[in-house]
Each structure stands twice: as structure tokens, then as C-alpha cells.
């Protein structure tokens, strides 16, 4: 099977865009429900259970409600920016999915169709570029509202998100180094050949996930919102659907982050210990490895979905378990911990890879396992030698005394 003809390509593209985009919307809506349900389980509550069985129609009810609510614009607001901000913040969150491969290639009578909206040669940079656009929506929304809480939330959002963007970018460099490539499908295939990158790049994964947590403004990093401090931060003045759009953006970002974690570090759609999905496409369009089949595509999609769902669960789980950082701590974590450590990590990893190559070890399982060993050592060093609180928390850490009661009288 050769490459698709232009007509077939256009048709497949339309189909893929429609299916993936609509599917994505449904997933994002589902995640809003999942968050409420999982939060309820964590907190011994019932969660939404009125609209349909287990509340599954809750997102629809929310949507209808948000459409019908009164839309409010504060008096001193900059009207156009105020309108634009939610769209700007939603746009990148929904576009990033374009470069994520969600399943093994699907064989069709007209050729092999990659199950990805757009297999861009710059896939990675596309993700980075769009992820950094999200900050505009937040900052503009905060600034346009002409309210002090919104303003504070907006500046917090901009400072936090750009700080973590550096860390996020740096945490992806090790993947470049290992994969020697910037397209996501290629990274998935590389992981099929060797090991999931989570092992050789354990530390990278840790930093990547922390940075992405901060980048999505969720969990312990919800500084721009921080409802106990800034009421609702940058979207204090927003109401009705415009407010819901910020939420949609947040959840879409969360799903994107989960999908990216699965793709970069957990083999994407790869099914572990099974060669049946190791489908590769050579430069001339011929197929290398296993034979593609529709059921393989489905299975790999299920694998991808399961991994993504797991990370979504982690996102929700973390948010409802631990307290919020303070703003200066977030910035300290970004600038004083993640960025220096990542740079050092890149240096160590580069050295290790050069050494491995000098030792004549080919890229493959052994290579990856050796790197995994090095990573494990680094991880332990970071966890135990670099005191987990000394830098971020300003050296305040002291252990709780088990018996601090003093008897009197």
C-alpha cells in the first residue's frame, strides 16, 4: 500500500478531524463529570446523581444551564478582550490534539491511514507553541475584567505559566535526545522498539508531569484561581458560558496533558509485551513489522485511552488530596528546583548516552535499561539528598513532634 492519494487524504482528514474533535469534546465533557464523581468518592459523598443514571447527563444539563444563564460584563471591562479571552484560552487546548497519535494505523482500501489528525514533522514544537498560547486567554481575561481579583489572578497566571513553560520545554529535551526526532508517531514507534520512555527518562517524566500540572493550573498549582485567596482569580467576573469555556479549556488541557504523558513516556498506543501492534511505515510507504488490521487499531486505541484515563485520574486524585502551594513556592519550585535540576539532568543524560555509545551499546532494550539505572540513581538522589522542602519551602520544614503535649497542673 502506497501513500494516500490527495482525494483520499482530504476525505480521511475530514473524517479524522470530525471524529477526533467531536470525540474529544465528549471526553472533555465526560471528564468534568468524572472529576465530580471521583472527588465525591474521595470525599465520601455521592456526587452528581440526579440527571440520568449516575448523573451521566450532568454535563449536558450544565451546558444547557450555562447557555441560559445571564451573561455579565463588568462596567469598566474592555469589552472585546473580555469576549475574546475565553476563546483564546479554549483554542490551544482543543488544537493540541491534532498531533497526538491515538491508535495504530488503520488499513483502508485506499491505503494505510495514520490515526492522527496531522502527522506534522514539527509535532513537538506544535505542542509547545500552542501550549504557550493558553496563557494569553488567562492573562487577558484577568486584565480585561477591570477587577482587582481578576487582575491578580491574571498576573499570577502569566508569571506561573511562562515559568513552567521553560521547565516543560526542558523536560522534553531528553526525549528529543533519545528519540532523535520530533514527531509524535515516531516517538511512539521508538518506544515500541526499545522501552517506554518512562524507564530511561524517569526523572524527565517526574519533571514533565510536575511542569504540566503547573501549566494546566490545576491540583496544587491552581494559583490563578485559588478560590480561597482570589475568589476565582482571572475568571471572577465571568459568568454563564464564558466562564464554562475557561473550565472547558482547563479540562481539555488536562486531557491533553494526560494524552501527552501517555504518548511521550508510556508508549502512546503501544500495547506492552505484544508484537502484533508494532506497525511501522517505511519512507516509501511500505509496512514494516506486524500487519495492520482494524482490530489492532481498536485495541491500540483502547490501550491509549486507558493510559490517558489513568493520568486523568491521577490529575483528579492529586487535586483532591493535597493542599495548594503558595505562590512564591510555586515560583521557587519552577525557577530554583525544576530548571536547574533539568539542565543538570540533561547534561548527565547526555554524558551517559555518549558513554553508552562509546561502549558500543546499540539503541535498544539494553541501552534503555542502562539509562533507567542511571535515572533511578538520580531519582533517589533528588528525593533524599536534595531535601524535598529545603528550596521550595524556604527551609521551614521541621518534623512534627509525635508528642508535643506538655502536661500541666
Amino acid at each position, binding site marked *: 500500500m502506497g501513500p494516500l492519494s490527495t482525494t483520499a487524504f482530504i476525505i480521511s482528514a475530514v473524517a479524522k478531524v470530525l471524529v477526533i474533535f467531536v470525540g474529544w469534546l465528549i471526553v472533555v465533557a465526560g471528564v468534568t463529570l468524572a472529576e465530580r464523581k471521583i472527588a465525591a468518592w474521595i470525599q465520601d459523598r455521592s456526587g452528581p446523581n440526579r440527571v440520568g443514571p449516575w448523573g451521566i447527563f450532568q454535563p449536558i444539563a450544565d451546558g444547557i444551564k450555562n447557555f441560559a444563564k445571564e451573561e455579565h460584563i463588568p462596567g469598566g471591562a474592555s469589552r472585546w478582550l473580555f469576549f475574546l479571552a475565553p476563546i483564546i484560552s*479554549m483554542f490551544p487546548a482543543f488544537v493540541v490534539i491534532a498531533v497526538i497519535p491515538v491508535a495504530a494505523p488503520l488499513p483502508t482500501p485506499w491505503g494505510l491511514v495514520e490515526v492522527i489528525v496531522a502527522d506534522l514533522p514539527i509535532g513537538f514544537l506544535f505542542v509547545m507553541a500552542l501550549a504557550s498560547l493558553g496563557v494569553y486567554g488567562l492573562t487577558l481575561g484577568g486584565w480585561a475584567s477591570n477587577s482587582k481579583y481578576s487582575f491578580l489572578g491574571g498576573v499570577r497566571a502569566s508569571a506561573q505559566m511562562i515559568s513552567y513553560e521553560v521547565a516543560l520545554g526542558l523536560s522534553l529535551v531528553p526525549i528529543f535526545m533519545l528519540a532523535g526526532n520530533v514527531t509524535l508517531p515516531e516517538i511512539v514507534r521508538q518506544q515500541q522498539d526499545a522501552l517506554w520512555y518512562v524507564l530511561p527518562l524517569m526523572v524527565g517524566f517526574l519533571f514533565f508531569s510536575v511542569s504540566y500540572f503547573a501549566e494546566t493550573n490545576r491540583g496544587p498549582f491552581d494559583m490563578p484561581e485559588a478560590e480561597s485567596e482570589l475568589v476565582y482569580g482571572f475568571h471572577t467576573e465571568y459568568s454563564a*458560558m464564558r466562564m464554562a469555556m475557561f473550565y472547558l479549556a482547563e479540562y481539555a488541557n488536562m486531557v491533553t496533558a494526560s494524552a501527552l504523558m501517555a504518548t511521550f513516556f508510556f508508549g502512546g498506543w503501544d500495547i506492552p509485551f505484544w508484537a502484533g501492534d508494532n506497525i511501522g511505515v517505511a519512507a516509501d510507504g511500505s509496512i514494516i513489522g506486524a500487519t495492520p488490521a482494524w482490530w489492532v487499531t481498536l485495541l491500540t486505541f483502547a490501550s491509549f485511552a486507558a493510559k490517558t484515563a489513568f493520568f486523568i485520574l491521577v490529575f483528579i486524585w492529586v487535586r483532591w488530596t493535597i493542599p495548594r502551594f503558595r505562590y512564591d513556592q510555586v515560583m521557587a519550585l519552577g525557577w530554583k528546583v525544576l530548571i536547574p535540576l533539568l539542565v543538570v539532568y540533561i547534561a548527565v543524560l547526555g554524558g551517559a548516552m555518549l558513554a553508552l*555509545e562509546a561502549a558500543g551499546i546499540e539503541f535498544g532494550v539494553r541501552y534503555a535499561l542502562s539509562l533507567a539505572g542511571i535515572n533511578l540513581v538520580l531519582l533517589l538522589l533528588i528525593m533524599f539528598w536534595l531535601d524535598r522542602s529545603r528550596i521550595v519551602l524556604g527551609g521551614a520544614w521541621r518534623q512534627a513532634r509525635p508528642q508535643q503535649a506538655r502536661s500541666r497542673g
Partner: protein
Amino acid sequence: MLREYIPVLMIFAMSLGAGAIMVIGSAIFSNYRPTTVKKEAYESGMPPVGDARERFAVKYYIVAMLFLLFDVEVVFLFTWGAVFRRLGLFGYVAIMIFIVLLIAGLLYEWRKGALEWD
């Protein structure tokens, strides 16, 4: 292959379209009845005093400037990372010099207190 960008444009259009539909649809379905008090900016139920857009503390802008520096660094590292295994030792040493220079800059900022918040 430039044709790969066609679906990207399509998804751009769909995202913007979805956003526009939400904003416009919401504007159609909701009825906005402003009053003087409703139009006041929210400040915990008090009439706000002073402007929200005044000359705000400069710390945030320092972070923005730092970001510019280090984001450029990251972009360099991207390109280097992609060809790292082909460049080998030479590229590694070169980029290390670059990194050391930047880290020195970061440490300088750190010592100068640009990363402190209070």
C-alpha cells in the same frame, strides 16, 4: 509534506468555530439586565476603591523577562537534542558551555534576589 497542515487548519477552524458558537449562542440565549450595582467590579461586595489597572509590582515583569531568556535557551536545546546523537561529543561539549553560561546567569539572578517574592 505541506498537505499535513490542511487538517491542522481544519481543526483550527473547528476550535475557533466552537468557541465562537459558545460565545454567540450564550449571548443569544441569556438575557442581560445590567444595573448600576451589577456593573460594579466584584470586590467582595464592597464598592472598590482605586483602579485595578494601576502600576503594579514589578516582580511579575522580572519573571517575564527571565522567561524570555530561558525560553530561547530551550529552543536551542530542542534543536540540539534532535540531532544530539549525530553530533556526538562535539555537540555535547558545545552545548554544555552554553548551558553553563545560562546557569551562571540564573545563579546570578538568584543571588540578586530576582526570584524572591517577599
